[in-house]
């Protein structure tokens, strides 16, 4: 690091350092001369009653001090400016290198931790490499100069003073490891506080909504207590570090005054010389302490150095992107997170300007694939090429001109609308910025802004919907006009209307770009040329006729009334590649007799059954049923439920929307209660009953020819004496109080049963 970063910085600022160095030497010499003049004032002017010399020496001292003060002030300003230059450039270099990292790095380090390293640790390093080392030089010069002067007074006293230096050093040496550990812990603890506040500020409303305020405050107390302990421990070690030299200095001073006084009394030393000597001794302590401070800072610097080195990228190769074609070729790609294999020998070719969609279950690796294409992640094995360039091996200059990813959550920076847009292309004119807004349908909104492009949209961001924010993010991409655009669940935070707009317009806005959309919106796949399904660690071409695999049973009649049941079924079945024998299905649901009747003549129950048969026509893998037994008599209801169970047993997935809790208990593994559009609860019926159910036993017995009823909690029933006492009576009935899903629903939704919003799957 010193060779690659610090030394070039020092060299760049060498002029400043030479000036500071020169001034510092002057200040040190000026300081060292003053006790010497003082000695002459006492011995040669005051004690010798030489008034003329006294005035001359006092005037010299006065002006020398003034001059030194002025030089010190100039030096201080110069020094601060120089230090700041180095600090800022140092931080900028490290920050610039962070752009070379991939996503694993950002997943590993919390932003507060990175912030602490970039602020605290880099400052520490800068202080050490420039300020401390530099002051060490001037200190050594002062030390040599003062030692020479003291030597001229008395060699024995000079040796005595110099002995204290190694004594202090060896006394402090055992404390170095403690100092190192304590500093490291303190940095981590500071970073923890940062992490806590960054997260809490971001999710303040979520925490409020969850009612987790108290918990959060407790966590803050815990973190602060931890920090307090660490700070106090550090303070103690620092105190020992500072008190040991102070004690040794005191000891030295006592010995020197005693010995110096003895020499003066004996006449071997003049009074002025003793005074000067004592002043020099005090002065020599400062350089000694500076040297010790440097030594003291060594462990801190080592911690900071390691923390900064840890975040620097190992490989810093950046090359221009040279390829002129933009076909994407993925060859034998393998990627794992620890032991979790995500892709295995994945191969894919994406032609230039094609529009493709990638679908798959949560956790299948869709976003990971997007990150690999962007070079945010590096594959363990295999290659990704864009034209002739391999992605993930090196970083490319201006790669965003070729490939850009539109993230799930639109990012609006704390800046004006212009500033937010210019991030993508700082050379874009106002006209281009406005055009990009027009293309994303934001022109009317732009016209409504009082300050136009200079409006701070972060401050007014609260008024922007998710869709509008994403449109601004898309405007940025329009300004870049990249060759490849990756859309990673880019409509997940926006409403249905905006989602529709995005999917319908994205290809029109970027007709000459390759678009790769990672999506869950199966109903939007028609907007793409090709669709790939991420499954079993690989991408498979997903045929657009995915409706082949789903069956939908609507609640309301959805058949051509003037056509017979048979004609309806033949018509709908003709669209599927795979068909089930509809005659057998119709017989099963008791409609074989009505096959050739017009559907208009069917009763409601018959239409519901016909809907069910229609949903099964293509032997689907997933069956969506809306109120499948509504309007059916118990017999027919039983038939439909039996068929649903059989479908499940064959490995099919059934999603039922119903208000009949009996059906839910009988047919479903999982229940989702929805209330006012929000999922209130999701669990298995059994777990719901365990969680919300009343666990009690009701006993009815005869007493004085009257039926008495008592309810006992099921908990600890074996030891419940009242219950055992009841059992000795003339028992009429004993039964458990079973809670139904209806009760649970009412409980969950606060007793407001709203059929329109109640959906149970």
């Amino acid at each position, binding site marked *: 690091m010193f060779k690659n970063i610090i030394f070039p910085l020092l060299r760049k600022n060498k002029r400043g350092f030479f000036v500071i160095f020169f001034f510092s030497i002057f200040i040190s010499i000026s300081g060292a001369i003053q006790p010497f003049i003082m000695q002459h004032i006492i011995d040669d002017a005051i004690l010798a009653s030489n008034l003329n010399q006294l005035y001359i020496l006092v005037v010299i001292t006065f002006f020398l001090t003034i001059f030194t003060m002025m030089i010190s002030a100039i030096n201080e300003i110069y020094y601060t400016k120089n230090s700041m230059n180095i600090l800022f450039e140092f931080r900028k270099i490290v920050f610039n290198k962070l752009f070379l990292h991939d996503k694993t790095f950002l997943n590993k380090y919390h932003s507060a931790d990175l912030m602490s390293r970039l602020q605290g640790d880099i400052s520490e390093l800068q202080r050490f490499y420039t300020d401390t080392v530099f002051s060490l030089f001037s200190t050594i010069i002062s030390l040599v100069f003062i030692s020479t002067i003291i030597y001229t007074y008395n060699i024995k006293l000079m040796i005595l003073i110099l002995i204290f230096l190694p004594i202090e050093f060896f006394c402090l040496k055992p404390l170095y490891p403690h100092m190192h550990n304590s500093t490291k812990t303190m940095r981590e603890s500071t970073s923890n506080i940062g992490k806590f506040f960054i997260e809490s500020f971001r999710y303040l409303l979520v925490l409020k909504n969850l009612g987790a305020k108290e918990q959060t405050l407790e966590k803050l107390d815990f973190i602060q207590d931890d920090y307090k302990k660490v700070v106090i421990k550090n303070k103690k070690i620092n105190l020992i570090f500072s008190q040991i030299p102070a004690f040794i200095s005191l000891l030295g001073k006592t010995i020197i005054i005693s010995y110096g006084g003895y020499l003066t009394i004996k006449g071997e030393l003049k009074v002025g010389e003793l005074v000067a000597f004592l002043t020099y001794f005090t002065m020599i302590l400062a350089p000694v302490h500076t040297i010790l401070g440097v030594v003291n800072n060594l462990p801190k610097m080592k911690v900071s150095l390691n923390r900064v080195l840890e975040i620097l990228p190992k490989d810093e190769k950046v090359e221009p992107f040279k390829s002129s074609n933009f076909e994407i070729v993925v060859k034998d790609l393998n990627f794992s997170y620890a032991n979790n294999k995500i892709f295995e020998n994945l191969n894919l070719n994406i032609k230039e300007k094609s529009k493709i969609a990638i679908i798959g279950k949560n956790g299948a690796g869709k976003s990971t694939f997007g990150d690999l294409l962007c070079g945010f992640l590096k594959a363990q094995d295999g290659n990704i090429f864009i034209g002739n360039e391999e992605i993930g091996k090196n970083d490319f200059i201006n790669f965003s001109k070729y490939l850009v990813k539109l993230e799930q959550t639109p990012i609006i920076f704390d800046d004006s609308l212009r500033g937010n847009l210019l991030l993508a292309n700082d050379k874009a004119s106002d006209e281009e910025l406005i055009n990009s807004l027009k293309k994303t349908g934001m022109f009317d909104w732009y016209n409504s802004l009082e300050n136009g492009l200079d409006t701070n949209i972060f401050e007014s961001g609260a008024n922007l919907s998710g869709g509008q924010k994403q449109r601004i993010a898309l405007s940025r991409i329009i300004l870049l006009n990249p060759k490849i655009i990756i859309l990673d669940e880019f409509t997940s935070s926006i409403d249905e209307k905006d989602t529709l707009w995005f999917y*319908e317009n994205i290809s029109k806005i970027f007709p000459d770009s390759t678009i790769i959309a990672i999506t869950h919106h199966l109903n939007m796949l*028609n907007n793409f040329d090709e669709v790939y399904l991420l499954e079993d660690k690989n991408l498979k071409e997903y045929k657009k006729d995915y409706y082949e695999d*789903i069956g939908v049973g609507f609640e309301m*009649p*959805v058949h*051509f009334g*003037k*056509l017979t049941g048979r004609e309806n079924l033949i018509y*709908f079945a003709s*669209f599927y590649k795979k068909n089930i024998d509809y005659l057998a299905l119709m017989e099963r649901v008791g409609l074989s007799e009505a096959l050739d009747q017009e559907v208009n003549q069917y009763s409601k129950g018959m239409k519901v059954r016909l809907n069910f048969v229609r949903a099964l026509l293509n032997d689907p893998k997933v069956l969506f049923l809306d109120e499948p037994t509504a309007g059916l008599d118990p017999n027919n209801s039983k038939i439909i439920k039996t068929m649903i169970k059989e479908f499940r047993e064959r490995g099919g997935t059934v999603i039922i929307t119903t208000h009949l809790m009996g059906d839910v208990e009988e047919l479903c593994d999982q229940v989702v209660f929805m209330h006012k559009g929000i999922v209130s609860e999701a669990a298995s019926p059994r777990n719901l009953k365990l969680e919300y159910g009343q666990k009690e036993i009701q006993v009815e017995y005869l007493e004085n020819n009257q039926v008495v009823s008592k309810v006992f909690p099921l908990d600890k029933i074996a030891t419940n004496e009242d219950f055992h006492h009841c059992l000795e009576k003339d028992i009429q009935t004993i039964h458990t109080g079973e809670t139904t899903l209806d009760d649970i629903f009412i409980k969950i939704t606060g007793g407001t049963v709203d059929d329109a919003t109640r959906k149970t799957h």
Partner: protein
Amino acid sequence: MMQLVKLIKGEIQRFYKYKILHISVLVSVIWVILIILLDEAAITQMVPLLILMDAAMMSIILMAASYFFEKQENTIRTTFVLPVYPRQILLAKIISVILLELLSGTIILLTMVIAYGIQVPFLLYFAYILLIVLSHTAVGMVITLRSKDFSAMLTNYIIFAFITIIPTFLLSFKVIPESWEFVLALSPTQGGQWLIESLFSQVEPIKMIISLIYLSVLPALLYPLVVYPRYKKVIMGE
């Protein structure tokens, strides 16, 4: 492609089952009777109007009927979960209406040939009918998709007819002065009138050029830019 053919077959089957085909043929029969009863001198003036009336007015009604029957019976939902694209569903409707109109056109053509021995260039005749049907169904679909139900659609359709179709007829009967002819060129019906008229008599080349461009460009713009997005939105909303 096969899915589209199946959808078209389904549309035609429903036209038959819902008696729309019968009505269409019945209307053609009325035209046939009218043609037979017409004075020979009035044939060249009236027949183009009958052909136009059938192609322009009936096609809109057929298209709207097909759409609203499906909407009323909720089968639009069922169709949407089939392995077909929304554009195929719309295309099947347009093609089935064109087929019905071509059938109607064939009946009228045969009547003219058999009863009066009037010869017209067949290919041009069907091509012009195709253009008239395409342009009118495009406008008709815009009206249909903006109407809540069939009766609301009929109200809008009558307003549209008063503004565009009726003036063309009035112009033909010289109720409206000829100087208004080029103003009426804004109406696709007037363009259709010039095209059909050209089969029977001389029409100025400028009128032919205007008609051909207008009736080709109008559906080419309306279908992809207005009708299809709106149709997709409406059926997705279902």
